[in-house]
């Protein structure tokens, strides 16, 4: 009896367990296969174009990411290149030629077949010198014509006039256009397509019915029906809309909002760690700048710049300004850039005493709490930054306080962005600037226009005819060497040396690397925020939204 009863209980338990398992499996499968729904988030400015080759603003770049089909995609999570429209690719040893083998049976959103001619057409359009687009310019390592050769219906090779460093990686930004579609650039190969655009208000993206990708279970991607991009420049409004449940994610969040949101709903916020972006201070070293000669002499002294760097308490900047959501910066690249970051670098230790010693080596001395140079000029300068950027304004004030401790009087001035750019790039009427560098790419080649002494974005002393200092000459040589080498290890060694020189000479006094902060609603499933842009929707084709 007992035995029978026991058997009965076991059978009942098995039956119940089976039923529960079926229900759970149903729920899990439901979650895993949940399709449909609309994802909603904000663009912070009006997209200037829907032509993916002309993109030069964040809003248009987001739309290109979501709608454009690329030959090769940089996986934002692993930072590795993955095949997309190209099944495989090969870069020649001299780094001038890249050959692609394309997937077959793919069509644009309007049904036009995707062919090698489309790739050739896109490259020719992209390399048109009159286009003046950042995407095209990234490929332009030398003057000359780019040749495309259709080898077979599924193979194409592209030959550049000179070596292009990191050539394959650059194709992550090149959305393929259709040569024959009557819809021109509105025919796309990406997971979504532009369905509606209300200027100033929103862009509606709908699932591309012809998208070629399927998930591991063979289901068509993307899972979402649509994405509604609200054009909303006001971050306060964006935050309110997110709190009200009118938005599903905030791609980049500042630390203040992050903490406010975290205190109320910690499950909504994500800190993915240090991003590629940096904030830095630099001094005006331009020979023709309308500043007193003795000040320019200070700014051109490496000892002076090192002393300023050592007198700045970066831990405080991170703790007070960014509420701990930033790391002291060491050099041109943040540790988030796994391959190119030079792990041997250490952030300059905060030491006002060491700063004063470095200054003494250049003849500076403290007199009644005021630092004076050899000629008796009190050390005083202005830092300008862009008005409205609270973090930079606060950093400037903290730096003002830090430098006061070594007898340097700093004036903080905020200007609107166009005025600041004019002073920085045209009149050179400034002493020091705090600004940020937004890195969207991992490769140092993308920063050639910053590190070459002849470049316009060599901010502290741009467009030099010949390098004015030996260390700038060495950086020029190293940057060119890494750009012309196909060997990743050699390139890395060259750029490590560049990073060491920059840390030693401090032309940019790197302050902090901000963390990549974002917010994602619990309605969104599959989100895994990362540090590379677009942080929250890099895997948009696999996201699902419940409850709508």
């Amino acid at each position: 009896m007992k035995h029978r009863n026991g058997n009965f209980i076991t059978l009942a338990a098995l039956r119940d367990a089976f039923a529960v398992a079926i229900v759970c499996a149903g729920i899990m499968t439901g979650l895993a296969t949940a399709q449909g729904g609309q994802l909603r988030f904000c663009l912070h400015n009006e997209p200037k174009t829907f032509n993916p080759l002309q993109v030069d603003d964040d809003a248009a770049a987001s739309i290109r990411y979501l709608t454009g089909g690329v030959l090769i995609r940089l996986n934002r999570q692993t930072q590795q290149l993955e095949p997309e429209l190209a099944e495989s690719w090969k870069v020649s040893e001299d780094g001038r030629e890249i050959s692609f083998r394309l997937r077959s049976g793919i069509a644009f959103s309007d049904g036009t077949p995707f062919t090698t001619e489309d790739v050739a057409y896109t490259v020719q359009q992209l390399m048109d010198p009159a286009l003046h687009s950042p995407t095209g310019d990234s490929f332009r390592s030398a003057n000359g014509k780019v040749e495309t050769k259709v080898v077979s219906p599924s193979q194409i090779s592209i030959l550049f006039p000179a070596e292009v460093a990191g050539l394959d990686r650059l194709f992550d930004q090149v959305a393929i256009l259709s040569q024959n579609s009557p819809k021109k650039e509105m025919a796309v190969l990406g997971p979504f397509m532009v369905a509606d655009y209300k200027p100033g208000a929103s862009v509606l993206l709908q699932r591309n019915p012809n998208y070629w990708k399927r998930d591991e279970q063979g289901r068509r991607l993307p899972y979402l029906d649509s994405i509604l991009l609200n054009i909303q420049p006001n971050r306060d409004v964006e935050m309110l809309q997110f709190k009200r449940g009118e938005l599903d994610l905030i791609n980049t969040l500042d630390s203040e909002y992050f903490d406010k949101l975290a205190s109320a709903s910690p499950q909504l916020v994500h800190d993915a760690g240090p991003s590629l972006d940096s904030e830095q201070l630099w001094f005006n070293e331009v020979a023709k700048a309308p500043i007193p000669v003795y000040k320019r002499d200070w700014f051109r002294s490496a000892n002076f710049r090192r002393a300023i760097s050592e007198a700045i308490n970066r831990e405080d900047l991170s703790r007070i300004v960014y509420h701990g959501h930033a790391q002291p910066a060491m050099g041109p690249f943040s540790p988030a850039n796994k391959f190119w970051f030079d792990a041997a670098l250490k952030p300059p230790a905060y030491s006002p005493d060491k700063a004063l010693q470095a200054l003494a080596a250049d003849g500076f001395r403290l007199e009644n709490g005021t630092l004076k140079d050899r000629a008796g000029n009190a050390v005083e300068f202005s830092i300008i930054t862009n008005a409205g950027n609270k973090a930079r304004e606060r950093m400037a004030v903290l730096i003002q306080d830090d430098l006061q401790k070594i007898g340097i009087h700093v004036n903080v001035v905020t200007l609107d962005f166009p005025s600041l750019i004019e002073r920085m790039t045209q009149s050179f009427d400034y002493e020091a600037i705090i600004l940020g560098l937004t890195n969207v790419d991992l490769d140092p080649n993308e920063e050639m226009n910053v590190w070459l002494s002849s470049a316009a974005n060599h901010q502290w002393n741009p467009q030099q005819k010949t390098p004015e200092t030996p260390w700038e000459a060495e950086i020029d040589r190293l940057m060119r060497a890494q750009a012309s080498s196909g060997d990743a290890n050699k390139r890395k060694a060259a750029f490590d040396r560049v990073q060491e020189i920059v840390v030693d000479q401090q032309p940019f006094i790197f302050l902090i690397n901000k963390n990549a902060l974002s917010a994602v609603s619990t309605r969104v499933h599959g989100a895994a925020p990362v540090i590379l842009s677009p942080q929250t929707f890099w895997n948009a084709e696999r996201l699902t939204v419940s409850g709508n």
Partner: protein
Amino acid sequence: MFWLKAQRENKMHSLHRKIAGHLLALLATVLFGGLLSATLVRLAPGFDADERVLDPHLNAASTHALEGARHRDDNILYFYFSYLIRAGHGDLGNSSALGQPVRALLRERLPLTVRLLGIGLGLSWLLASMLALSAAWLRLSIYDAMTTIVSGGLLCLPAAVLALLSVLWNLPGSIAIALIVFPHTYRYAHNLLVKIYSRPHILAARARGLSEVRILFRHVVPVVMPQMFALAGVSVSMAIGAAIPVEALCGLPGIGALAWQAALARDLPLLVNITILVTLVTLLANSSADVIGSMLRGQEA
């Protein structure tokens, strides 16, 4: 009889002269306003700067091309006169910041601003008239004090604060416009109505037992109409001024937000067109109010 006819003709002549004068003044002011706006933008610091030159991906040729595009508008007189010639053919130029035709931008954004201003002004006038009229009817010092405190409080609040409150409380932007314009219209309407209602003939009519509605429509409205029309013209300018912070802060894609964006980006073609449009609307509103007021005064006389 002949004398009456001559007098009527004289009045019509005077009205026509007034309308012609207004139109001439309007044209001159619009043209001057456009030139002034263009000059101010050109002289503003940062006019020559383009944020895009900071993009490290751009090569020297692209950077020069961007700078060259900016310098095209350096000669402001040349820019303005060529703009006027093109505008005469219906081409309002291209926005340098948004890269789109100005004509399309204005056409897309105008309906929202017109709706915002229309509802905002309507609400503000309804509220101001009702409160002012009830204050004049009731003549209760406590009621007067309460409405004065409310309107005074709203008058003290900057437009941006009211716009932010409307964002916070999820209210339509037109409510913010209404609350910004309301205290100005209310104070004027209140003072005017109280003054009219204390006139001897109104007091006598009330003493003789005439209904308030009859007094309002027969003895008050005809007297206050010319002045209320003048106030209406002024309130349109106030509402247009308020639309810039309201649209910019509430994230409403209208002409106000466009003007704000254009100013931040030193977008010369867009700013000149918006200035001309706003000047035109303001002057038309004021001139219409003036002409209608004159006609009503003429009828009254």
